[in-house]
């Protein structure tokens, strides 16, 4: 009778036995965990590093008034060096501002075309192309600014130098456009198709569907795209270094050369003595840039996720 009872075969089970797989699983979990939190560690590490390097300046020579409100950046003046970043901020802001004026219509138009009008193969090709455009190194853009835009601006507007706000703004705008296009297109794609269908069934034309339904529904994502473009503009170094003219100056017109915060660090850091006030001042600019881009990117991220403030 017991022969046909399968339960009789083995009444003891090793519920606590562990084989190799268990250890491999734990190990992989650990590795992935470390990789996952490494981003946080690096961010904090970098922040601590630049803060420490710039700290001496913040404690001794730093004057809030001078740093933010003086337009004179004269760190090499032997008698009375001045560390005012107002002109540098103005340079970065003017170039970034113009870049957005260039990039917003381009990227929004491209995103609308790719997302709403192009279909099939064309759409795929365009997306790949936009990604490729985003991968062009910034020094190449700077090169274009230097060797193509510069003479072009001199010719077209009859100005003595073509390295100015206009040049850098256009270059930076073209640089920022692909990534903005990509994110804006994602935002359009995230709009449920039933909204389009509803609007079309009510008699809306294709343009009305886009303008009255899709764009309002995607506005958070589109705003996020623009903010990421701004973040890119603030942080970009090489292209603005090459195309702005690199002169400390609060610009009065599009044809004035300016200097950007990032370019200042890039150009001067190698020539300063480690630990000198100048060196530390550059790191203080670094802290400032870090905080600004951090805020911009965080805001963009929150907006893209649809978390609205207030």
């Amino acid at each position, binding site marked *: 009778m017991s022969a046909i009872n399968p339960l009789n075969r083995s009444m003891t089970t090793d519920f606590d036995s562990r084989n190799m797989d268990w250890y491999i699983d734990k190990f992989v979990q650990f590795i992935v965990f470390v990789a996952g939190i490494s981003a946080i560690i690096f961010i904090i590490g970098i922040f601590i590093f630049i803060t420490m390097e710039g700290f001496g300046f913040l404690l001794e020579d730093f004057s809030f008034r001078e740093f933010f409100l003086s337009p004179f950046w004269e760190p090499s003046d032997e008698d009375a060096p001045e560390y005012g970043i107002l002109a540098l901020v103005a340079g970065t802001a003017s170039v970034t501002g113009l870049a957005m004026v260039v990039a917003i219509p381009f990227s929004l138009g491209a995103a609308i075309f790719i997302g709403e009008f192009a*279909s099939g193969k064309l759409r795929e090709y365009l997306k790949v192309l936009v990604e490729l455009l985003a991968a062009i190194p910034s020094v190449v853009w700077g090169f274009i600014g230097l060797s193509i835009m510069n003479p072009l601006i001199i010719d077209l507007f009859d100005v003595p130098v073509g390295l100015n706000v206009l040049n850098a703004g256009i270059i930076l705008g073209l640089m920022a456009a692909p990534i903005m296009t990509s994110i804006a297109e994602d935002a359009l794609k995230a709009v449920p198709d039933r909204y389009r*269908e509803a609007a*079309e*069934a*009510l*008699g809306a034309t294709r343009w*009305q569907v886009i303008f009255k339904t899709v764009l309002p529904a995607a506005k958070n994502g589109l705003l996020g795209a623009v903010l990421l473009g701004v973040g890119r503009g603030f942080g970009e170094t090489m292209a603005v270094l090459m195309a702005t003219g690199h002169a400390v100056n609060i610009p009065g017109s599009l044809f004035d050369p300016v200097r950007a915060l990032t370019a200042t660090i890039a150009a001067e850091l190698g020539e300063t003595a480690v630990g000198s006030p100048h060196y530390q001042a550059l790191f203080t600019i670094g802290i400032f840039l870090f905080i600004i881009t951090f805020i911009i990117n965080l805001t963009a991220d929150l907006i893209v996720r649809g978390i609205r403030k207030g």
Partner: protein
Amino acid sequence: MNATAKAISEPVAEFAIRTSKLNLWYGTFQALFDVDLNICNGMITSLIGPSGCGKSTLLRSVNRINERLGYVRIEGNIEVMDKNIYDPDVELVQVRKQIGMVFQRPNPLPISIRDNILFGHRIHNKGDKSSKSDQNEIVESALKQVLLLDKVKDRLNQRGTELSLEEQQKLCIARLLPVKPSVLLMDEPCSALDPKGTAAVEELIWELRGEYTILIVTHNMAQARRASEECIFMLMGKVVEHQATEDLFVTPEQKETADYIEGRYG
């Protein structure tokens, strides 16, 4: 001229929608075969049949929303109010103005309730700027007609997407009315709703009959039976039977119809 006199002097077409030899392909797949139908003016006609029988496809070709897909090919005619809507001179916008559609899943736009209702109206009345009070009146009467006014009149600026599903579907019906369509197409309008919502929306559809010609696709045979006046049974892309609802359910002429309504398949 008052409304009755107008109705007498202008002969009203007996049939609001007529299809003849309607064939439809999705790419190479043929979804409709020689569909010939006459849909009575001012009545509720339901379309029933198992999944994939082509009832939604038929409905969606009556306002040409099928064309969004891009790979749809159609042969034959669909006449709405005696005009073939597939004629080359037909403007899609006018087709959509004449023929409203309610979808399976309520799809109010992510704008305010008020703007949802005025959306179609604004599109079709671009020229004349209607005053704010006119607009209020339009919103109010549309909401009243779908029995939603009391529930939402204090929150017209709330997003349409924040309402309950039942209210959303009513809103989707309400926003068709200011456009003054003659035909309403409904693609399983209650399938996303609970029984209470279904009853409410059915009641509303019943209220609208007479004023509008309503063509409604439903998966729910009981719904077709209680909420429509005529009924069409489709199978494999063909119309099998078209009768008064009462007759179709009591004395079906075709064996397939009898088998379907008795639940032997589908």
